[in-house]
């Protein structure tokens, strides 16, 4: 079905179409701005994440080795008994944050566990190593989730811009051109008709 099917070639419709295309073009400009900003945010997030996961994995490996050593050295029951004696546990709050309307989770550490008091030195060392990577794990999780959601939104925005630029706007332009052509044609017909009538009247008088 053609884009002009059902189009009323009237001046009122033409004005409505022109108003609509103006609105769509402004919207497209905004979406382009959003796309550029999201691309900038994504690049910044990726720069932060670059190499971070591999560094974190290495730190986690070291921390896990310490935990393993503590378990082998003290036995699982003793480790669990000591670990349970830590009164202040890690408390987190996950809050929503937004960049250009894209919501991502922000992790706020409410309370950090106090590990110095009650643990055996072996376990205490392991716990300190785990705790030292905890901030990095939380930050990495936050940035990875942020990057993922921004990339997702960037993809959607890009598709919208492309659809508007390549399909919607050209089709509106086609409709406007069609109406203008029709109106031009009608006004030409009207002019010819007026001329013919004018000629006939002049002949009758003469």
């Amino acid at each position: 079905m053609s884009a002009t099917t059902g189009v009323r070639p009237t001046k009122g419709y033409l004005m409505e179409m022109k108003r609509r295309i103006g609105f769509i073009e402004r919207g497209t400009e905004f979406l382009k701005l959003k796309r550029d900003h999201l691309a900038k945010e994504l690049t910044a997030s990726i720069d932060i994440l670059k190499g971070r996961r591999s560094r974190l994995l290495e730190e986690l490996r070291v921390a896990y080795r310490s935990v393993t050593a503590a378990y082998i050295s003290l036995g699982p029951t003793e480790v669990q008994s000591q670990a349970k004696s830590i009164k202040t546990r890690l408390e987190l709050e996950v809050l929503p944050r937004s960049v250009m309307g894209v919501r991502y989770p922000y992790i706020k550490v409410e309370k950090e566990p106090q590990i110095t008091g009650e643990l055996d030195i072996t376990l205490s060392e392991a716990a300190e190593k785990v705790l030292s990577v905890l901030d990095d794990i939380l930050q990495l999780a936050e940035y990875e989730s942020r990057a993922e959601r921004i990339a997702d939104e960037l993809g959607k925005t890009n598709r919208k811009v492309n659809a508007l630029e390549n399909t919607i706007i050209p089709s509106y332009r086609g409709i406007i051109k069609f109406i203008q052509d029709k109106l031009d044609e009608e006004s030409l017909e009207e002019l010819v008709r007026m001329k013919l009538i004018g000629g006939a009247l002049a002949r009758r008088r003469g």
Partner: protein
Amino acid sequence: MSPGLSYVVVRSHAMMADLLTPEQMRALADGESLEVFVEQLVDTPYGEISIATDGDTSIALEKVFYQKFIERMKGIVDLAPTEVGDFLLSYYYLRFEVINLKRIIRGKYSSIPTSQIVESIIPITPYKVESYEEIMEGETFQEAVRRLEGTPYESLISSLALSEKYDALWPVEIALSYLSAREIFKSLERLPQSDRGLVRRIVQAEADVENFLVAAKQRSSRESAHSPEEMFPATFGIGLDILSEVMASDDLRTVIQGLNPPYNEILAPLYEGDVALIRSRLRQHIYDIAKRGRAVDDFGFNVVMAYLIFSEIEKDDLVGIAWGKTQGIAAEDILKYLAIPFFI
């Protein structure tokens, strides 16, 4: 030597054959998986072990190894003449009871359910207290400690003030460790003079290393600096002056290198960065003391003690291997922390 003792010594010699050799222990650590480990145990005195599929397998295995050790220990205690039996009861039961009390108090301190505390208890019959359940019935850890009134542990009640002052458990735990060491030394007096050396060397080495580790740990929380006298009621080869130096020092390397052997070697991992190795080196040292003690007097109390020490270290190594295998840890990472394979 009493006839009673000679019988236990002969039995200990015989039962020594039941212990796993360093080679067997290494083979167990080298096994590919937990299933292989359990299969290999079938050919040892541990025989076939059935593990419940629900719950933590490594903890279930830990219980099996503890049970085996307790059986072995009871076997010796039942046969031993009164003075040796009393000492062994005091040495092992008291130590295990102290571990149980620490676990109960920790559980109460962090308000974990009683069922979980019961799960963590070493399966021994209560030694100096009436029952563990009665202590667990206390609502708070303070109440649990107060329930020890009228038992040999009642001196712990006085450590509660310090515990409340610092809002920490260490004063109670240190008081328990001190009480345990003091009781063991007291029970040593029941043994003939000639038999005391081996146990004294072991208890002192354990206490010295433990004190040093506590002092080293305090460096990180210097803002709450407690007095060394408060923290270390009993010191032996590593005196209060050294422990104070440790608590104030930024460089443990110099302090440790200045210690006498074997402490400088046992504690070296503290500055080398692998603290867990200290306990395996301490176990290796104790194993060595027992081995040498046995070599000095192959027909005396040292043999009995050596059998039980080897057996206890075997239990600790097996617990470590079982946990490592449950977690799929590589053999070389497990072997590093074991004591017995070191003697291959």
